[in-house]
């Protein structure tokens, strides 16, 4: 076990030690995109990205890139990414702030995403997403509109009307100008949760059923639909959906977001909550 810890500590030393390669003093023009790309290819594509991002070398390659040209926002983001996944906010968030300062257009939404999903700073995330929506009204982050994350944050802050409004915007953006775009099942799930919190049970049921039509095993949609039925005094339907949620979780179905391995999404549940709800329905 001591060995495990030594390994663990060495992994956590990411970005703290010296340099893999001697940082090359910029011989080119750091303001040139072409020159920046050359350095990114050298230190990240052919460097950091060939080792585990939990290896100390990862941070060292990033440091080398930063030493060569300190104005490449991507270097700071790459250095921050493994740190935030290990809960080191003091080291990671200033790096993300630096990336945003250097390239707001590219990294502001990413910072909002980190605040929403990783550090649960919902007010901070909303501010970032509202700002970036002004810069890029049709932008996306992690496959979702900015309004999607804004809605999830408002939901967690208990601002259900604002959440409802944000999810309406999210849906409108997904439908697109021709109104033909399909809506992501997780938008429908969150919109259903927001409607339920507003005691709009029929609307909540509609959204959650739509979500399950797209993804029948969605554990959270089944769970929250069950709660919706329970509130409406329909225990048989509640039990049916809780059992569906339990089967789905046991079979490995999740809410299908890339980052759920690192951090729980707002309103995400586990089998524990489903078992608890089943006990209450069976009372």
């Amino acid at each position, binding site marked *: *076990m*001591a060995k*495990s*810890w030594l*390994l*663990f*500590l060495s*992994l*956590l030393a990411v970005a*703290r030690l010296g340099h893999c390669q001697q940082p090359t003093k910029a011989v080119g023009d750091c303001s040139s995109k072409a020159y920046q790309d050359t350095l990114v290819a050298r230190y990240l594509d052919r460097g950091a990205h060939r080792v585990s991002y*939990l290896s100390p070398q990862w941070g060292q390659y990033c440091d080398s890139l930063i030493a060569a040209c300190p104005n490449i926002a991507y270097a700071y983001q790459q250095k921050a990414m493994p740190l935030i*996944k*290990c*809960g*080191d*906010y*003091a080291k*990671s*968030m*200033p790096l993300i702030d630096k990336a945003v300062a250097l390239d707001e257009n590219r990294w502001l939404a990413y910072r909002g995403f980190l605040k929403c999903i*990783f*550090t*649960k*700073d919902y007010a901070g995330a909303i501010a970032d997403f509202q700002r970036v929506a002004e810069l890029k009204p049709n932008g996306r982050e992690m496959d979702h509109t900015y309004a999607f994350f804004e809605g999830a944050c408002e939901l967690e802050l208990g601002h259900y009307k604002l959440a409802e409004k944000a999810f309406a915007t999210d849906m409108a953006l997904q439908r697109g100008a021709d109104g033909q775009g399909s809506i992501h099942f997780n938008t429908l799930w969150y919109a259903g949760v927001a409607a339920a919190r507003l005691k709009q049970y029929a609307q909540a049921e509609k959204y959650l059923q739509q979500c399950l039509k797209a993804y029948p095993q969605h554990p959270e949609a089944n769970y929250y639909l069950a709660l919706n039925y329970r509130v409406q005094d329909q225990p048989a339907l509640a039990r049916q959906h809780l059992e569906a949620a339990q089967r789905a979780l046991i079979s490995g179905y999740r809410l299908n977001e890339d980052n759920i*391995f*690192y*951090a*729980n999404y707002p*309103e*995400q*549940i*586990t*089998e*524990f*909550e489903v078992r608890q709800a089943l006990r209450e329905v069976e009372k």
Partner: protein
Amino acid sequence: MKCLCAGFLFLLSLPSRAQYLSFNGGEYLDTTTTRNPACAKVPTAPYFAVDGKYPLSSATLVREATAFLAHDSRKFGGSGYVTFRFVIDCAGFRQPMTQVLQTDANYMPTHFRPELVNELYAFLKTLKDWRAATHSGYAVSYFTYLTFKITDGKVVAVIP
């Protein structure tokens, strides 16, 4: 004698300092390493490679942490993050060696009142349902963390 008593009372009135142990550049609440012979030769993975998040939702953990803190009548203040990092061995047991990281709400390093940190650590010790993880069919130990987001002294989120 009066001076001695006054001095003693003065010392008692000072906020207590946490007994953080410095190790490898970090602060630790416990540096004890234990050896489970069954896990001695298994590799250590990161929590996210083995679905190693604690098997309760964040909302449930917030409720349980809040209830745990409520048994103590002390009121705490401050906002930010208290993170504990540790290893779960291949049999699913949390290992005692525990690093603690603390930041304020703006992610700047800080120290919360040690009594609060100790209470959160005591709560962490009550969590016994860590998964025994496997990777590619083999038992592995894994390193993980639990962060308590604190707002005005109250637990408002548990991460990851």
